[in-house]
């Protein structure tokens, strides 16, 4: 029984990170139809920022995290204004935007290597100790990942579905030109969505940094899983991405428990292919306004 609970917990924890990353990608795609291939690098930038504030400047973790989220949100907005917005004004921008964000991703990785070097850096655990209940052992740091990820995504959902900003985002997602016609500044909404997406990526990086190491390539693996989550959940569906993130994490965890680890990705992506076969638009597509 304890091993089943551990499998579920491991799946939820991994899934919460996938959900954080995937929901950010889904939010941008759902609102602007842009696939941001530099999303993983926003995670990486956040990782280095929280290291700088918490380790180099020795600031309180909460303050370091807050400053990181503000700055990475600003970086997301800046990327949108400088790179995406000018391209959106052109015809046939879809491929150009993909090329631009892939280029940006490579440039940011190289810049990070230049600025911070190729050394891997580690952030100390925010929460020390291990929770032991019977045979189950789980560090508080991992439990904190799950708790904070759920809180952050709940807050984001609240903003999207219960606030004026959320209504503007959803209106722009449905029809940017119509939204503009009724006085919604669609361009600014696009920028705000990029900022929120970057904050979600940043939150993932902050929660993960004590467990993984910060390096110029840390975002690459999570970007791939993020895209899988977005496809599984339904392109552009925020709620779908959250649910799919947890689902993918759970499938991976169960897969490892019953088969050698090398089958983990095979199992996860086989599931993804089966879902696409029966529901080409993803599990939760079309369920959101």
């Amino acid at each position, binding site marked *: 029984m304890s*091993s089943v609970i*551990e*499998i579920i917990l*491991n799946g939820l*924890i*991994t899934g919460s990170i996938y959900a954080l990353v995937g929901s950010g990608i889904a939010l941008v795609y759902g609102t602007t139809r842009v696939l941001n291939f530099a999303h993983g690098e926003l995670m990486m930038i956040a990782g280095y920022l929280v290291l700088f504030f918490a380790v180099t400047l020795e600031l309180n973790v909460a303050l370091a995290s807050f400053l990181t989220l503000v700055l990475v949100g600003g970086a997301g907005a800046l990327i949108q204004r400088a790179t995406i917005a000018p391209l959106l004004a052109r015809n046939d921008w879809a491929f150009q935007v993909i090329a631009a964000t892939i280029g940006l991703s490579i440039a940011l*990785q*190289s810049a990070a*290597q230049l600025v911070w*070097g*190729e*050394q*891997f850096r*580690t952030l100390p655990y925010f929460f020390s100790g*291990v929770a032991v209940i019977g045979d189950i*052992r789980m*560090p508080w740091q*991992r439990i904190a990942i799950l708790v904070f990820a759920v809180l952050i995504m709940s807050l984001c959902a609240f903003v999207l579905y219960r606030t004026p900003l959320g209504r503007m985002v959803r209106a722009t997602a449905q029809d940017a030109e119509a939204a503009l016609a009724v006085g919604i500044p669609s361009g600014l909404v696009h920028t705000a969505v990029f900022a929120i997406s970057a904050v979600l990526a940043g939150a993932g990086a902050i929660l993960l940094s004590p*467990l*993984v*190491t910060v*390096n*110029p*390539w840390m975002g690459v*693996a999570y970007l791939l899983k993020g895209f899988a989550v977005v496809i599984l959940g339904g392109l552009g569906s925020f709620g779908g991405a959250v649910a799919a993130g947890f689902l993918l994490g759970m499938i*991976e*965890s169960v897969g*490892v*428990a019953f088969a*050698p*680890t*090398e089958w*983990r*990705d095979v199992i996860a992506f086989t599931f993804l292919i089966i879902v696409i076969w029966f529901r080409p638009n993803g599990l939760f597509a079309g369920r959101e306004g």
Partner: protein
Amino acid sequence: MTTTTRKILTAGILSAALASGAASLASAQEVTIGVIGPMTGPAANTGAAHRQGMELAVKEWNAGMVETVSDTPPTATLVFEDSNSKPEVGISAAQRLMTQDSVDMIIGDTLHSHVTMALMEMAPQYGVPILSAEPVSSAIADKVLSDPERYEYYWKGNYNSDGYGQAVHGFYKWAFENDVIEEGNKQIAFVVEDTDYGLANAEQIGKLFEEDGWEVIATETTPTGTTDFYPQLSKLRGLDPDVLISVFTLANSGTSFVRQLDEQALEASHLAIFYPTRPEFMEVAPEIADGLIWAALQFSPEITPAHQEFSDRIEAEFDTPANYSHAHAYCTMLVALRAVDAAGSTEAAAISEEIGKTDYECLIGRMQFGEDHTVRSGADAIPVPVAQMQDGQNQVIWPENVATADAK
């Protein structure tokens, strides 16, 4: 054919022969060596160490600060290319080095076995000698043995996976016999990265343990760079192995694994392969790895004066202390330069022949190549000692004749 025509032809042939000899002699005065390694990507920190080790070797060689074979050694120039840890990128890099830079020899891949498996195919294709540096996978040597003629110009600058296999097996056999570690139910498990390096190590070690009646109960392979091992460790806790072997080339994987292993409180005897050589691991080791047993401690400035002296030279040159990768790269480059020097030529066949004759005592041990074109391991060649982290410092605990401390 008239006499005059014969004279002209003879003179032509003689001139051509002399010119050819002159070119060979001239080329032996200068040698251009291309180096392929992970200069970017997750393994870039190791690639950087390789680059620094090789640059120091060439600087000292060109300045006459190291022992040469002849009195007129060639002057060396290095050209670096990035493999990004990917075989296809390594192949493109080799093609550039051979066709655009016209290098006389390639050292590559400096780290990865899977990149080397692709690169070694370029040696017969282009007729350029290739010497890999740190890769250990036995599969590389097996390929050479399967077709020695084809891989005439390829050489492997590190020992095979069975070097680790014999060390790990030998250590545990000694530890069980001397009641240092309990044998238990004779069950062994592996968590390794899914590269030729990780898999070959698991295979070699598993085979030796199985010959002693052990059972391999799990071989979990994870992608390079994995940092979340909780699913694997939860599973292993249920299987309850007596010995657990982990193999990673990236320090971040090793750091995460050791920390999470402690959190999960597995009772197995854990032995780590390779990643404790990384300085990033050692930075956090005192906090997470006290008592860790690992292989192989081949570079230890804290207990070997020659290593400390080398580390000081690296630090003076590059403002960073040396690690094992610096030392291995330094020795690999000197093996290459000595072969060119001994050959007195930049011809592939001559260099290749001289690499095969190498018998050179370097920082990491005595460099000699076997029939499989691979550097030999063992007490009389490159030793593979097992170490343990004790009070924040590494101590050699096996073999007993070179041990610096008792196992705890």
